[in-house]
């Protein structure tokens, strides 16, 4: 199986789907001639031309809405947000147009579109460019929200997303683009379904529930915990909407303890929803309160010293496990 970076896996998924279906097109800022800010779309402008790889003006509401219109008649737009932070500007189009079309038309129309881009902290991008918005999106019925943690999932889930007839928010963490992993690009038509969590690491004493880049943070925490004789199971939920609660609950029935880990602001993040559900459904299995580790509740500061304070790391996860231990 070839080893690819997360970035290249995404690009390969775009290529596969664009080759497979001429109605798939890409739109976003600087994705074409400039090859994409994070280089996910590198080479695609030359390969598919300006009609399928469209450089958009800096008008997120405009081009997102345009994509919704095109999707309503069956095209399959893949919209790149240069960073997911900028999707805040397009929220009205996402929430009020994309997510509601199927319902408001009574099923007459659907919106087969993907909005993808880096979400979460990169490196010192300051307060306005460091948002984790997946929790907001996962709150919205009509959307699907996908948060792959590995190159293989990035590949398989982006293909699934493009084929999905519903609007899919596809969040990539900037810290993952360079991550390498095996990706079954050559094994026929590999896709990864939504709503199926992945046991990233097996364990018996505590369940760490995470997604996107926090999965590797949890894996690192599990390494540390192992040294102290604590066996942590890491559940990578992979999609927030749909959410595979079955796998989460099954793990907790085994471990009797859970910590939910997410990069987004702790208060009101989607981790709260996951924790609340665990509390509701696993009450009798739980030997301790459901722990949570989230980003600090502050606008991310520029200073690297302060920024690092904001982002959860493996030590924070270990501390949370100890707290409920």
């Amino acid at each position, binding site marked *: 199986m070839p080893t690819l970076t997360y970035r290249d896996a995404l690009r390969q998924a775009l290529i596969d789907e664009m080759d497979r279906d001429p109605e798939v097109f890409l739109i976003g800022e600087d994705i074409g001639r400039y090859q994409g800010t994070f280089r996910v779309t590198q080479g695609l402008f030359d390969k598919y031309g300006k009609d399928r790889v469209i450089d958009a003006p800096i008008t997120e509401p405009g081009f997102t809405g*345009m994509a919704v219109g095109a999707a309503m008649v069956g095209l399959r737009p893949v919209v790149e947000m240069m960073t997911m932070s900028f999707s805040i500007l397009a929220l009205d189009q996402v929430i009020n147009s994309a997510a509601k079309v199927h319902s408001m038309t009574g099923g007459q129309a659907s919106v087969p579109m993907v909005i993808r881009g880096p979400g979460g902290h990169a490196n010192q991008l300051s307060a306005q460019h460091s948002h984790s918005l997946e929790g907001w999106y996962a709150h919205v019925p009509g959307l699907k929200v996908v948060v792959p943690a590995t190159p293989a999932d990035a590949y398989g889930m982006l293909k699934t997303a493009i084929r999905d007839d519903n609007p899919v928010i596809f969040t990539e963490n900037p810290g993952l683009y360079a991550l390498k992993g095996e990706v079954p690009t050559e094994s026929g038509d590999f896709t990864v379904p939504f709503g199926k969590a992945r046991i990233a690491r097996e364990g018996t004493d505590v369940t760490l529930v995470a997604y996107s880049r926090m999965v590797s943070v949890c894996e690192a925490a599990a390494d540390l915990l192992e040294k102290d004789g604590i066996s942590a199971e890491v559940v990578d939920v992979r999609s927030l909407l749909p959410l595979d609660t079955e796998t989460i609950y099954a793990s907790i029935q085994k471990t009797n303890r859970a910590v939910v880990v997410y990069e987004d602001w702790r208060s009101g993040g989607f981790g709260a929803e996951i924790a609340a559900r665990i509390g509701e459904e696993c009450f009798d299995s739980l030997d301790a309160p459901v722990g949570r580790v989230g980003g600090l509740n502050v606008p991310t500061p520029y200073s690297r010293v302060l920024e690092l304070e904001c982002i959860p790391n493996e030590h924070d996860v270990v501390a949370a496990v100890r707290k409920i231990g």
Partner: protein
Amino acid sequence: MPKSVKQSLTQSPTEIEKYFREMVLIRKFEEKCNVAYRTGKAGGYLHVYIGQEATGVGWINSLKLGWDYVIAAYRIHAFPILMGTEPVACMAEIMGRVDGPSRGKGGSMHIYDIPRGFFGGWGIVGGHTPLGAGLAFAAKYRKEDRVTLCFLGDGAANAGVFFETLNMAALWDLPVIFIIENNEFAMGTRLEYHAADTELHKRGFPFGIKHERLDGMNVLQVKEDAQRIIDWVRENQKPYVVEVMNYRFVGHGAADNDQTLYRTAEEVEQNKERDPLHILRKIMMENNIMTEEKMEAIESEIEEQVEEIYSQALESPHPEKSEVYDHIYTDMPVEKGH
């Protein structure tokens, strides 16, 4: 109203009768919607098109129906009806019944007839304008010569996303016509209090888009202008901005009672001279196209038709409670319960 209409009629009496019938149908249908609202058969936000009929009739009649695309905001009952949707279905939707195109989930503001090319039906002011560009984009992408009409209000013409859309439409030569229906009010705010320059067609200028201010009251004139512009856009594959001057004779929505807050009775009275039905009746008489008796007969006929529409719609059932979970996703159930 131009004095010279007599000499310049280019439409046949049959066509003119069609327009008249359509305008009367819309007028009566809308009046009935207001009744439905007042009697509690319809709720929510309900906006009627009284005073703006000539705009809808002139423009929709210039399209290739079943091929071209139309999208509009929330004052929309007229569009699907003109495009062939059963009026009973529209009325049922307005009443929230299952025989509405959205099975009662959309209501007055969210009517769609996708097979016929009517794409709603949107409540966020200005928010549908990029969708209009998207429909045109799709047609162009597929090398189809469909034209898209995107109707919006004078108030909507201030929304940022509309300008973003104009830039994209011009940048990528999208075959879409933005029709700003300037009915002089955005809810309770007069044109001059919401737009720094009240000539709204000028919004096309910074993007090099052809733009005109046109009459929206004389349906024959509207039809001519509409046909010219639609043909041009189909031919040239470029966008167009049109400002159509009409007038809203009714409240903003069915719940907008106190119109004295934003206009005088005299102003409304004066504008009655511009009422599109009044104008068309006058033209038909002056040109001996139809007698007053015939007009009255048609009006009564349509009045009855609307009564029939209304009572048929009333017979349509309310949705089953379980339908609340339908149509959220194409392929996936949602979690149930509170």
